[in-house]
């Protein structure tokens, strides 16, 4: 007998498939942009901005070496002094959401909190990707 102690929350938090009535409803794991640019705390903001723009993005997720989310650079932060280090320019500790959150629920959250984008992470904080308003059917 084995005990999977961290259970369904851990399983779904990792974006793994499930069965059941909710399984057919779209979730963040289905729409999240996994190709979002990432950077580290000690990079120069101007260098990051150049890379982000060249990739066609206006946001970048700040991560540790283990890909744990530390902060977020949205368009506003990316426009700050290019000589700043990311650590000084980023929005620290952004709210993150798990891959099993439904698209409908995320739409409500983004409207209620006026969020342009949010990182999606596993239950241990590792980046899965970024979800933007357009990814959940919002402008």
């Amino acid at each position, binding site marked *: 007998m084995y005990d999977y102690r961290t259970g*369904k929350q851990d399983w779904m938090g990792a974006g793994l498939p499930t069965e059941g009535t909710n399984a057919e409803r779209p979730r963040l794991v289905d729409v999240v942009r996994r190709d979002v640019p990432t950077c580290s705390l000690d990079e120069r903001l101007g260098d990051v901005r150049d890379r982000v723009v060249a990739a066609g993005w206006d946001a970048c997720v700040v991560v540790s070496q283990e890909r744990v989310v530390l902060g977020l650079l949205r368009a506003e932060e990316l426009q700050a002094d290019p000589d700043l280090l990311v650590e000084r320019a980023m929005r620290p500790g952004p709210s993150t959401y798990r891959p099993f959150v439904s698209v409908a629920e995320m739409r409500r959250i983004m409207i209620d909190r006026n969020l342009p984008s949010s990182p999606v992470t596993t239950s241990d904080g590792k980046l899965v990707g970024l979800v933007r308003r357009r990814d959940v059917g919002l402008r």
Partner: protein
Amino acid sequence: MAQDIGREQVRRLMAEGAQIVDVLPRREYSEDHLPGAINLPLRKIESHATQVLDPSRPVIVYCWDSA
């Protein structure tokens, strides 16, 4: 005594044919459960386990989290 295991061990044991038991209430099981899991709510597990589980195959039990 059950042995604690993590996600990767669960996946490996599932691939090897382990039986997965969701001990959450029926409604929560119906909404989402691990692939192939059967539902044996905690209050029924002792009385029903021997009827529905194959004693020759490993059994993994889980609920929502470790709380």
